[in-house]
């Protein structure tokens, strides 16, 4: 049983004061300051007056910025869907592997997750650029296909045009999937691993195919895991800064890049503060939606 704090006041104070004080001073206070700034105005190069104005939020609701918000949601959503499509079969394979194999596969999925994000993004640049390995492989396939076609008496294919895989929106989505895939696989795996397998066996015995069993038995059973995987992938992808910055082109900016510019080059802190609070509210909405869906699915059962 939990103790009430009155029973051991000294111990309670010794245990609770350090973490609460730290959280208050070095997390709540900085956040509160930013929140206050979002209602302020620039009155000089370094002075900001707290005037209680909503003009920063009005400006954030202009079409230009709404479009960037919408685009960030789309990019993060697409990333999440791709991660789910790739992550689900991988998680399924891990969950049904032999114990030894399972440990290895989990380690292999986890290892890139422990590697530095910047390094992983940089590694991807070398693979995706015009003189990168994806294009080299495609060129090789292209010339072989071309040779084959001359062999059977057809017109050879034209000159190989390297694909532009870098500095556009595709690159941002590829980069985000690359970085966030482990986030999706792990919760999916733990949901699938805990699942009652006799239900799957029953479904297969009663004549349902594998696809049908997966769609109608496994997916509903693993729904909480899928929901948390979606959330855990969507939130960081929505606020991604580094990937669009390094892999994106001029039109692939996401909210985080706009916020960064307000605080560095544009030097408009109140507007940046308003944007970052809007991003935060979006995040909270995503969390609330997930909690709602989860509660509804639990009630149905």
């Amino acid at each position: 049983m939990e103790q009430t704090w009155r029973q051991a006041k000294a111990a309670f104070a010794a245990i609770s004061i350090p973490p609460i004080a730290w959280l208050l001073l070095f997390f709540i206070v900085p956040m509160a300051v930013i929140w206050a700034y979002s209602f302020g105005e620039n009155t000089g190069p370094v002075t900001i007056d707290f005037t209680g104005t909503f003009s920063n939020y009005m400006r954030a609701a202009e079409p230009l910025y709404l479009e960037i918000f919408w685009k960030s949601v789309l990019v993060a959503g697409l990333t999440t869907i791709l991660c789910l499509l790739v992550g689900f079969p991988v998680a399924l394979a891990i969950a049904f592997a032999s114990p030894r194999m399972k440990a290895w596969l989990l380690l292999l999925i986890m290892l890139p997750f422990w590697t530095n994000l910047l390094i992983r993004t940089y590694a991807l640049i070398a693979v995706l650029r015009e003189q990168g390995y994806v294009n080299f492989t495609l060129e090789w396939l292209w010339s072989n296909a071309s040779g084959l076609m001359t062999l059977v008496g057809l017109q050879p294919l034209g000159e190989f045009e390297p694909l532009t895989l870098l500095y556009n929106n595709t690159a941002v989505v590829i980069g985000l999937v690359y970085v966030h895939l482990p986030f999706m696989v792990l919760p999916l795996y733990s949901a699938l691993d805990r699942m009652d397998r006799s239900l799957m066996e029953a479904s297969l015995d009663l004549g349902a195919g594998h696809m049908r069993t997966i769609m109608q038995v496994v997916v509903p059973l693993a729904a909480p895991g899928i929901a948390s995987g979606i959330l855990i992938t969507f939130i960081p992808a929505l606020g991604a800064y580094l990937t669009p910055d390094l892999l994106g082109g001029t039109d692939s900016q996401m909210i985080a890049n706009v916020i960064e510019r307000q605080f560095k080059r544009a030097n408009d802190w109140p507007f940046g503060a308003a944007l970052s609070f809007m991003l935060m509210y979006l995040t909270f909405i995503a969390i609330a939606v997930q909690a709602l869906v989860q509660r509804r699915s639990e009630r149905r059962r």
Partner: protein
Amino acid sequence: MTTLSQRRARRERPGPLEYTKRWPLRVIVLATLAFLYLPLITLMVFSFNTSRRNVVWQGFTTDWYVKAFNNESLLQAFVNSLTIAFLCTIISVILGALAAVMLWRFRFPGKTAVEGSMALPIVVPEICLGVAMLVFFARVLPWPMGLPWPLNLGAITIAHVSFSFPFVSTVVRARLASFNRELEEAAKDLGASEWRTFWDVLVPHMQPGLIAGALLAFTLSLDDFVITFFTAGPDTITFPVKVYSMLRFSVTPEVNAASTVLILVTVVLTAVGLQMQNRTEADKAKA
């Protein structure tokens, strides 16, 4: 009529639930692993390339490692990163363990609010925390300039602890759920003080959680770019920030060499951490 070969084929077909043995899943798993690892392997291989440009393999050399190790500012950034990660780990483990014990042991007014705010740093987007820290250290608590090393790393360390210790707390609390509270009562009945009970009964039980939390805090700190980017000053560059600026100017295999070293450091540390965790769990199982 079933021929022998058909019967054998049926026998060798995977069982109904052996999804790992079905070839479509095998292909997907292999392709995923290739997608995850080929870029990293390419990066490491090209750190040994003689060509300046990372395009064609020309020959083997370790010059880039020598160059990276002689690059004063890169080395300083590397040392800074490891120092910050080390300090951040110690503080985060202490704060995280205390927070976990507080939430696990006590009932107190406002507990839900405290629990909720503890989860906030985990879900708040990095960029928001980054700009908040920038403003905080610029306007509210200006970190004095020109302090001797490692005190000049204070601002970054504080920012890292703020987002790391809630993770540690979550891990440790999960571990505490399996603690038998009667052991604590028994220790107290036998005359152990509050402190002694904590140190000799609770902490040993928390140990695997503490190790896992420490590992998490260390990698979170070492990995962080965005929050550091906003709190770093001109003479407090960390490794990711340094690599970022190198990427902006010129990309040479020197970056590959430095990255390879960092990847190896993380892999070795993770291996050591997992080993320690397995060992303490095995000890517990034996005891």
